[in-house]
């Protein structure tokens, strides 16, 4: 009967903004309590940020980070979907994969970094592999679980209508797993992003937001540290909320009308 009260879109956006504002307030309080060289306040950091935004070095770092993200995340999604679909068909393979994932997933990405540096050499490759590994698990798991739950009646209905194998995959399997695939992709993005920044902080190679963050910390530039953290958090929130959510609403339009 009665449904839980829902907020209007404006109120929803207002509430989300308030959530962000609360964090900023907390930060500003810390800045008031602590000396400025340990924790700069928001105005100082925003000023710094605007200076940074005018520098080519910032865009180089941004480009480096986004480039690695694109490659690592892309590879992880491709493999995740492929392995997930394979696991759907082959149930023994599914359990093998699950076993491997349970063990591998508990190792934090920063423990992987030195191993991959030694095994793969220097350059962007070890960072990309760490990112891909971090994003692979949720992507594969979500596709795996989704294909398990494609409704047989949908497959039967399509077959009765004369669907070919290709038509079945394109018109039934793919749209059916799409919701979980997108949830998995969002989880995977969070993992990939955190792994990427961590790895960049640990490997001083190439340009990247993580490296800039690490360098600022090293030279006692707390305004730089905070403005970098701000960029990292906002960028991830933007990618997640704007790109991934928009994609979700486009691909899953039918759920939102």
């Amino acid at each position, binding site marked *: 009967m009665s449904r839980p009260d829902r907020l209007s879109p404006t109120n929803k956006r207002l509430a989300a903004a308030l959530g962000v504002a609360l964090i900023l307030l907390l930060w500003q309080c810390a800045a008031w309590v602590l000396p400025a060289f340990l924790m700069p306040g928001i105005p100082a950091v925003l000023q710094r940020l605007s200076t940074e935004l005018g520098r080519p070095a910032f865009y180089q770092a941004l480009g480096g980070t986004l480039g690695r993200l694109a490659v690592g995340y892309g590879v992880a999604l491709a493999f995740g979907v492929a392995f997930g679909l394979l696991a759907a068909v082959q149930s023994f393979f599914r359990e093998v994969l699950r076993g491997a994932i349970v063990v591998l997933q508990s190792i934090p990405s920063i423990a992987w970094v030195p191993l991959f540096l030694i095994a793969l050499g220097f350059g962007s490759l070890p960072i990309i592999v760490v990112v891909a590994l971090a994003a692979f698990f949720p992507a594969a798991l979500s596709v795996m679980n989704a294909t398990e739950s494609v*409704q047989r*009646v*949908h497959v*039967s*209905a*399509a*077959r*009765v*209508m*004369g*669907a*070919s194998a290709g*038509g079945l995959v394109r*018109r*039934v399997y793919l*749209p*059916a797993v*799409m919701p979980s695939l997108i949830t998995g992709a969002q989880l995977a993005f969070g993992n990939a992003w955190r792994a990427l920044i961590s790895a960049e902080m640990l490997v001083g190679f190439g340009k990247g937001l993580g490296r800039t963050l690490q360098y600022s910390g090293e030279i006692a530039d707390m305004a730089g540290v905070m403005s970098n953290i701000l960029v990292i958090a906002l960028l991830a929130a933007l990618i997640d909320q704007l790109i991934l959510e928009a994609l979700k609403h486009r691909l*899953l339009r*039918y759920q939102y*009308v």
Partner: protein
Amino acid sequence: MSLVFDNVDKHYGDLQVVDRFSATFRTGEVVALVGPSGCGKSTLLHMAAGLERPSSGQVLCDGKPVAKPDPSRTLVFQEHALFPWLTLGDNVALALEFQKQSKAAARTQATTWLSHVGLAGFEGYYPHQVSGGMRQRAALARAFIARPATLLLDEPFGALDALTRLSLQDVLRTLVAEAQPSVLLVTHDVDEALFLADRVLVFSARPARVLREFTLPHRRKGHDLGDFATEKRQILALLGVEVDAIA
């Protein structure tokens, strides 16, 4: 299109579901299959559709063995068979697209068929936006659009409330009267069977065997079924429902 079950057996592992079933369904005939839950009625329909193979025996369609699904023998499921990610229009059109018809032609025909079942103007709605009865109307349109020679209906109105079911029975009867397909209708509702069918087969509990067959003299019946009170009483008795429980 005639459909013949020739001594068909069906096992799932150790479970015998159909036991040497033989029957002939003539072209243009509407036959209702009534029986207790789990007796194997859906299994019979799935074998007729080509979704399952008999363990032994044969299902013949116009004399040829049924090997795989074919759009000339369409199955309508009890529920949930519309694709939630397509609009009603696209759902109905898909039946033609799967048969290599152009998208545009499929759309136009889908619109026509939706209006046949009383859904004019609902092409752009998604299944979850309309009521259960409207979904089932769209499923009927999707089944009829490919002009199948045989229509297999597996409790098509089982999930609907009693009143909606009555009005859909009317829609189905009109569509069948126009397109004249052969129909195999599985139902738990004895009234529905008596209202729609030329012939009613009553099945035993699993493994499915025919207990008795009723041939109904004419199709011009009303929903109150005063004429068929005797048949209803007999069928319910066969199915084990105490007809006059307290009386």
